[in-house]
């Protein structure tokens, strides 16, 4: 169980994660694994008493849920280890290729020194297990640089005139 931060503010997590054989309860917001989503897709999308999110492991492609993104409120992308950066590109696919406007949350081995990079790729929520990261975010520390050499999925100002690929974080 991690601590949820949305836009870097700590929040109670209204979402219940459903994995394996567990039945999907009615009347609550649930994040389900891709397996459950695919096997119970009709019932899940027909629910009108609770929002739906899907959890993807690194090797489960965004294309598997692309057709249903307008019905999903959350996509949770796992970082099984901080060193597995697959989900950075998946967040960008969600935001840039599919225009997904719901919550993209990073879960798993999420660390303070990567939060800024995740935000730039389109993540806006984090379920953090790492104690040092929880402590830093609770204090409002985010060591991310405010200058960037490339556009990404975040909102930024363009850089100086002669190199329009550069970016500056919004104040």
């Amino acid at each position: 169980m991690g601590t949820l931060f949305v836009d870097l503010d700590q929040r109670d997590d209204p979402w219940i994660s459903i994995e394996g054989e567990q039945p999907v309860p009615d009347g609550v917001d649930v994040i389900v694994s891709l397996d459950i989503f695919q096997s119970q897709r009709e019932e899940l999308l027909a629910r009108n008493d609770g929002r739906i999110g899907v959890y993807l492991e690194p090797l489960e492609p965004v294309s598997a849920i692309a057709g249903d993104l307008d019905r999903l409120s959350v996509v949770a992308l796992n970082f099984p280890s901080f060193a597995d950066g697959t989900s950075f590109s998946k967040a960008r696919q969600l935001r840039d290729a599919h225009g997904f406007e719901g919550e993209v949350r990073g879960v798993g081995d999420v660390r303070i020194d990567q939060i800024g990079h995740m935000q730039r790729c389109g993540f806006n929520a984090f379920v953090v297990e790492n104690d040092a990261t929880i402590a830093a975010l609770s204090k409002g520390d985010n060591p991310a640089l405010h200058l960037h050499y490339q556009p990404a999925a975040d909102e930024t100002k363009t850089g100086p005139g002669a190199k329009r690929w550069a970016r500056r974080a919004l104040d």
Partner: protein
Amino acid sequence: MYRYDEFDHEFVESRVAQFRDQVARRVSGELSEDNFKPIRLQNGVYLQLHAYMLRVAVPYGTLNSQQMRMLAHIARKYDRDYGHFTTRQNIQFNWPKLEDIPDILADLASVEMHAIQTSGNCIRNVTADHFAGASADEIADPRPYAEILRQWSTVHPEFLFLPRKFKIAVIGAGVDRAAMQFHDIGLEVKRNAADELGFGVFIGGGLGRTPMVAKQVRDFVAEADLLSYCEAILRVYNLSGRRDNKYKARIKILVHETGIDELKQQIEAEFERIREGVLKLPDEDVRSIEAYFAAPAFEELPNESAKLEAAQAADPGFARWVGRNVSAHKAPGYAIVTVALKGTGEAPGDATSAQMDVLAGLGEAYSFDELRVSHEQNVILPHVRLDDLKAVYDALLAHGMASANAGLITDIIACPGLDYCALATARSIPVAQEISQRFSDLDRQNEIGELKLKISGCINACGHHHAGHIGILGVEKRGEELYQVTLGGSGDETAAIGEIIGRGFASDEITNAVETLVDTYLARRLSDDETFLEAYRRMGPAPFKEALYPPAPATEAA
């Protein structure tokens, strides 16, 4: 060359401040080594056998004299008075203290240098032809594109935790001096039928335990699409590259397992999606980066120098050095000088602080303030007047840097090996030193002619042994160092991977084995003009094998 603008200065300075804080957290124990490791790696800090090692980026191998002097200063103040130029055009310091590294990075920032992304599973320092902007055979200077790629790839948020490291090289001539086809992305600047600039794009080259020559994925990508195409390649790789086995994680394996046609489809589909987006390069922005690399103000000079000819006639040692270490320049009356950091018995690529200071002075006095680091671990003075060659030579001679062996058998590439490296399984430097001593006679070296000998101290192949005409790979077998020989590799535009010739040799046998190979070549070459590589390609391995592993003599009569 490129100069930092305010944005670059502010970026690098804030990065130094960020790392200073992270080092303080590590030293105080707040950050564990496990948590610190990915951070230090992305700032070029390795933990080696005996100490931390700092690898400083020399973007596309280009330096000015002030920067070279700063490298000398760092060697003197924070290290043991020397540095090691690497096969990726970088420089490594082998003995810095962790607490000093933020100060070293601040010193570097003051001369527009950094160590960002010189290690870790991210896009590494972009390399380029070390003769860029100077050589007579160039279509266009590759460095403006390398600089644009440097900027785009610097702390690219999406590509800092790739399956494995990722190397990009750019060349601007048909002749490949940067081993471009052994990179994850190789770019060849070219013009299309409409005379527009763009790139031939190669992917999936690499050395290591599974060496592969890159495959061409595009004959021509327009200049404006440089970043979109590279981002498409990186995104496909980051999504699909293997992470279950670090030895199968480079893009070369993805190319091999997926097939270039299928992978190309994925890359092209992503490229089509983003090509008209924010990464499209505005022409005026490319031109403004290009302006930084404008040719210096060459004097109008005749193509020949009477002064040079007289000096050559008077000094045979100088004449020999000119013959080997001086290359044709695009501007009449100028030449490119290769300073071989390969004196007899020296560790390839090592330079003392005093030598770096001398090189800085020569760059300033004779080469429009410009120096280059080559992937062959030499330093280049790119723009020297023919009239000044003798003065440059004399200064190099006085400081032990006038080896007239560029491209010869003692111009060896070698990794640091087991003397420094935590990954190594065998020593490289002592082998290079012994071979260098055995072949120290310059007449003999010249008789042998062009021969690229490359030594790696483990299967990771940092010494590029697969690309050596003669390659040597040190391995460990039952507690002993054993050296395997490969033949016929090449890192130029005819890129090829060397073939293993047979069982390995002990450390006291390997130099003899090299000598046997060389003697076999000399005895069998068609003429003095047929190089070792050409002779190998003509004859194949058989005569070399026979010489190295003679069949057991028939049972002797009683």
